[in-house]
């Protein structure tokens, strides 16, 4: 947000809610952040804080009864020109379809859901490449199946799948967790995206496989200079992958800044508490860990004022009365907390 570059993606005051019989779930409640070209942005937050819904909103994939109720999602398209507000595009319209999968690709949280079980992974990627032929062929000529298949084999090789010529003919359920994850990354790269959204891409896999996939994503990022939004609740993964970090809680950004500041000079009480509560590989063992008291509130029962106030060790009187807005608190760092400023949100 502080760089003089222009952002590739700029999310401003995004709101997404689900209207259920039991009440209104404000899953995303005024989230703002920027993604710079080629940057790895880490989004961290506990279960249910709205990470996945935010990403689905960017792709206009929020399912009913959910809908985007406010804010802007400005995206700079590859052809130059003024940024488009994705929040205003029709979810099924031609432009959104072209951007989705064409310029912004998603590695979804559920690995099994990403591939159809009745077609081979290769066929599914070949189809995606043919659909976005103009990204591979100047002049917009549609690629032949054969050419698309060659590209797919190359992508499989790029993501470190051994015997790629054979593996493209496998069904997703025949691949191990690690290979399926790699195939999914190949699928995401098949349209040469300028923005890759990886929603907990390593949560379901083992630590040694995770290390392989993280190294792979780092290499691909360096090679293609793709911007990546990397979502996880694992602070270790964030520390190793991201250059800039957004910390979310109950649908709002609590703090954001460069990775080193977030880990070594956190400002927001939630960020500080979160960092203290994880057991480290170096700390003293078998002692009580500092805890964040209380539990995450139920989505129907959002606390008034600062969403963190019922659990905050530094809570003050006004914290339950007004919602702190996201403001600069240090060079390069922003936080939503009245300890640092007195700017409240209007809504």
């Amino acid at each position, binding site marked *: 947000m502080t760089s003089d570059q222009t952002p590739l993606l700029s999310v401003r005051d995004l709101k997404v809610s689900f209207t259920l019989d039991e009440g209104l779930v404000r899953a995303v409640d005024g989230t703002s952040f920027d993604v710079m070209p080629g940057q790895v942005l880490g989004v961290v937050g506990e279960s249910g804080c709205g990470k996945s819904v935010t990403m689905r909103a960017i792709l206009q994939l929020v399912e009913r009864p959910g809908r985007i109720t406010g804010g802007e999602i400005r995206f700079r398209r590859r052809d130059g020109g003024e940024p488009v507000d994705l929040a205003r595009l029709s979810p099924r319209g031609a432009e959104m379809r072209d951007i989705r999968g064409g310029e912004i690709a998603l590695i979804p949280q559920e690995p099994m859901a990403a591939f159809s079980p009745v077609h081979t992974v290769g066929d599914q990627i070949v189809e995606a490449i043919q659909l976005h032929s103009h990204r591979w062929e100047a002049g917009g000529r549609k690629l032949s199946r054969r050419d698309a298949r060659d590209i797919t084999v190359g992508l499989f090789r790029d993501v470190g799948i051994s015997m790629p010529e054979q593996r493209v003919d496998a069904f997703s359920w025949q691949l191990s967790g690690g290979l399926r994850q790699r195939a999914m990354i190949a699928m995401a790269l098949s349209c040469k995206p300028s923005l890759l959204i990886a929603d907990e891409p390593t949560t379901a896999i083992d630590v040694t496989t995770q290390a392989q996939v993280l190294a792979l994503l780092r290499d691909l990022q360096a090679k293609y200079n793709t911007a990546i939004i990397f979502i996880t609740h694992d602070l270790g993964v964030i520390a190793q992958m991201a250059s800039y970090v957004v910390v979310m809680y109950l649908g709002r950004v609590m703090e954001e800044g460069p990775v080193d500041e977030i880990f070594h000079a956190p400002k927001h009480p939630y960020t500080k508490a979160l960092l203290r509560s994880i057991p480290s590989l170096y700390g003293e*063992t078998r002692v009580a860990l500092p805890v964040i008291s209380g539990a995450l509130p139920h989505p129907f029962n959002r606390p008034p004022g600062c969403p963190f106030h019922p659990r905050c060790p530094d809570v003050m009187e006004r914290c339950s009365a007004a919602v702190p807005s996201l403001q600069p608190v240090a060079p390069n760092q922003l936080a939503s907390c009245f300890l640092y400023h007195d700017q409240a949100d209007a809504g």
Partner: protein
Amino acid sequence: MSAPPAMSEPLLDVRGLQKFFPITKGFLQRTVGHVRAVDGVDFTVNEGETLGLVGESGCGKTTASRCILRAVDPTGGEILYRTRAGKVVDLATLSSSELLPLRTEIQMIFQDPFGSLNPRMTLLDNVGEPLLVNGIGNRRERTDRVAELLRLVGLRPEFMHRFPHAFSGGQRQRIAIARALATNPRLVVADEPVSALDVSIQAQVLNLLLELQSRLKLTFLFVAHDLSVVRHISDRIAVMYVGQLVELAPTAEIFGQPQHPYTAALMRAVPVADPRVRTADGILGGEVPSPAAPPSGCYFHPRCRHAVARCRVEAPELREIAPGHFTRCHLAGEVTF
């Protein structure tokens, strides 16, 4: 919090444990092979200590735990357990009627607090069930005991008439812990008890387990795949790979000087929660082999960067390389991993 207990006779002594599952094929369910889910697990657990059991998905942690609880019958090996009465019995071979009186002494906590609690029963019935099943106390006494247990895990006794769905994930795990403690067990086998919890809640549950252990003199077998969590809670750590125990040592020692290449690789793979510390090079390549068709010789040889010709043909035995430090590697002691 508590010093590792002095070497006494172990509470649990597992020797050469094996559990094979048949692979069947066709209409006649012909057995065409075996999944060697657990194939050579040896460890002891001393009274009052926590032994951490780690390893990647499918290495047999849950199966080994289920053997100890006799939720499945082991294929081979011994599970020697010292009862409250001081008698050593082999849990692997006891009949179900002989096991019955021991059911109160050994309890389990599962990863998924949703699955282990009955959604149609109140907390009173969920937490009190082990008492009912083992015929302990009348309704009045059970109610008092449940109130006491809820207080013990930091929940209000008034909650006992509510149903599990009214509680958060962390609270449900507390309920499951209360239930496991109902019969005053000596040994608690916890299979990934914090893996499904958010980080802020995970710390609460880990603290609770440590506190209960020192208060009630509990012995834990703590199964997990998160090395930071296991390191935090365990006195000693056992590492499994493809059904076998490959290393066992006191926590500080196994982290300081791992004596098995797999343990060393596992530790290097953990992403460190500090951007100034870059996770080390030497990422382990390849994939975990299937326990239905493990490699020849040392099961780790296809991925081991130290492997020598001998490793492909000769299976290493688990051996004690330093007092209390066991490893299953031909080169341990000669090479630093």
